């Protein structure tokens, strides 16, 4: 199946004519490819770990030095023992975890019985979540179980966890939840 060099030359119109007409056609003079400015020369490099699955691939995050401080490129870390620079399709897209104009810019709130999401501020959202967690927790808090043993728990709130949290974040998260008295604590920590 291999096409020989001769056949290949025949295939390419430009090269074929150059051969046939003794160099009338193709330009053989040296051309120098203009290098694009290498944006990474002006970037700060930070290592990180991909949060998308349990493999835990190493990343290099390039952030702009020009004051913007935003990520401009994220790629696999060639010195990382796990992935040696490689990334899957999901990991290769991880730059968009930080920079993506198509993602919601603020938290969205849908009021009970409403059919519409409305953009709200982080301040409002966090205050509202804290208020509602406190209300439910205070209302459902059990100091003792049926046998009279001290339990200090709430069975009215559960946590389903997050797939994008790492081991350390999960530890901090579960200790917050336990301090509230939650017993239904699930997680999807993968790294």
């Amino acid at each position, binding site marked *: 199946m291999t*096409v020989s*060099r001769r056949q290949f030359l025949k*295939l390419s119109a*430009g090269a074929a004519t150059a051969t046939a007409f003794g160099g*009338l*056609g193709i330009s053989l003079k040296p051309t120098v*490819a203009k290098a694009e400015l*290498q944006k990474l020369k002006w970037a700060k490099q930070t290592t990180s770990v991909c949060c998308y699955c349990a493999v835990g691939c190493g990343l290099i995050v390039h952030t702009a030095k020009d004051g913007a401080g935003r990520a401009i490129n994220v790629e696999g870390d060639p010195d990382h023992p796990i992935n040696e620079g490689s*990334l899957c*399709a999901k990991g290769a897209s991880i730059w968009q975890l930080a920079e993506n104009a198509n993602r919601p810019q603020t938290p969205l709130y849908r009021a009970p019985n409403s059919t519409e999401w409305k953009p709200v501020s982080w301040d409002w959202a966090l205050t509202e979540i804290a208020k509602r967690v406190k209300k439910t927790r205070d209302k459902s808090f059990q100091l003792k179980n049926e046998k009279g043993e001290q339990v200090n728990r709430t069975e009215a709130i559960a946590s389903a966890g997050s797939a994008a949290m790492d081991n350390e974040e999960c530890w901090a998260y579960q200790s917050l939840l336990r301090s509230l008295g939650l017993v239904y604590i699930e997680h999807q920590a993968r790294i």
Partner: protein
Amino acid sequence: MAKKFLVDLTRCTACRGCQVACKQWKKLPAEATVNWGSHQNPKDLSFNTLRLVRFEEIVNDGKVDWLFFPEQCRHCYEPPCLGQAELDDERAVIQDEATGAVIFTEYTKNVDAEGVREACPYDIPRKDPVTGQLSKCDMCIDRIQNGMKPACVLSCPTGAMSFGEEEEIDALAQERLAAAQKRYPEAVLGDPEDVRVVYLFQQDPTKYFEKAIASASPTMMNRKQMFARLLGTTKA
């Protein structure tokens, strides 16, 4: 020194990390895709999709086989696109002496886009409907000049992609071919002496994609090319 790629398809799992890494490095926008019954999405290369993993389901002796073909510009030693494009503007397509990379510049907007696309044995160049410019893979020339691997090669998790000096890759290609042929007797390299992106196919290349290798039937010169050459109007 001139560079070369080897894409060992026996190792490709079609994870499409290369396809996304290419978009990520070049910051090319996403395309609206539809479910058309294949994981091959978007359906074809475009001005904004320079690398595409093609999926092909075939039947061999009553058994289904699934072929993956991560397609990109082959960076021909003697690029037909360059020969065609310079008829209209010699600045349109340039070949980097150091790496052998074939690069489309902004002046591709001045050339006969259809002619350039037809000149390509692999049907790679695509036109931007807005600016009229043509685009394709540029070998990540900016990365190479700074001692980095092309984005697709760096991202490949299975070792299907290798990049390096021409002689090293030629040797590696022969080594991998010999290994592959033990399991896949039909294994073959795609145009290894003519292009800088060499695929190792585990079976007939045309089963992967019609234009996976340069067609065996010669492409005729079009009228425009022929007259330009006969009359010597090309800027040599």
